[in-house]
């Protein structure tokens, strides 16, 4: 995995990890698999517990990617951590609304809001 191209930009803000997706399109099985593994690694390998996923760059997101986000949410919850999503553009937010996943995820408009009171 370490040799695979990095798909998340990681930034530490205090004790919170901000992971920003690099890809514009989170589509295609292989792609989603790699992104998913790098995301899961934040919890499983690095033991991070307070994570903000930043969607600034994301223009497309398929249902398979939603599946990875659900698994990620479960992993963070199981580790007694906290996961927030932020900077989701309106079309993508609609995807969360249609699938009612906006009820599951803690979604904030901006990164500042996501970091507030974490």
């Amino acid at each position, binding site marked *: 995995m370490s040799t695979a191209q990095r798909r998340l930009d990681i930034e530490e803000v205090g004790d919170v990890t901000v992971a920003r997706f690099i890809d514009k399109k989170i589509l295609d099985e292989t792609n989603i698999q790699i992104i998913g593994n790098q995301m899961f690694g934040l919890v499983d390998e690095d033991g991070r517990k307070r994570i903000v996923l930043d969607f600034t760059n994301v223009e497309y997101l398929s249902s*398979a990617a939603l599946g990875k986000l659900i698994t990620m949410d479960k992993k963070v919850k199981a580790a007694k951590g906290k996961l927030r999503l932020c900077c989701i553009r309106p079309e993508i937010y609609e*995807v969360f609304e249609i*699938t009612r996943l906006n009820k*599951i995820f803690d979604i904030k408009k901006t990164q500042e809001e996501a970091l507030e009171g974490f």
Partner: protein
Amino acid sequence: MRAGLVEVGSLVPFQLKRWDPQPCGEPRRPAEPEKSPLEFAQEMTDREQFEIFIPSETAAGQAVQDRIIQRLEARGFTDRDVFGIRLSLEEALVNAIKHGNGMDPSKSVRVCCQIDTETVVVEIEDEGDGFQPEEVPDPTAEENLERPCGRGIMLMRAFMTRVEYSDHGKCVTLEKRRSVEGE
């Protein structure tokens, strides 16, 4: 013009034989008598279509997606339409390649696309065993919300004007009528 008409005429039998965007068993749409032959011919020349067979690989699915999206962008479909169509194509192609054909390299996926000034219709057919779309559990039901799968069909239905399964779930027809900017 004459040459154009001849060319248009030659397209018709192909469309009747190979392309039927209406669901089986439903009466054909009546002819539209208000259109003059010239108007009809002009509309036909604005119409483009292609049919290809792609291998059961997601990269091939991406390539055909790009090809369709480029055409829609060139025709000025709105960003929102393009977003919904790309997402729906992705979901339908992944379903056909992965769930239908099980990524089997000996099987292919047929993609037939027809675009005119108002509408895009894409038919995607796999060589799998089919499935019952109505038996896919509702992913928005409380008990299914945390399940990581089963949202593709729902997204297609939300973003497209028409989504229809035929041939026991082996073939899906996606249709999108273009929106007017500002709608």
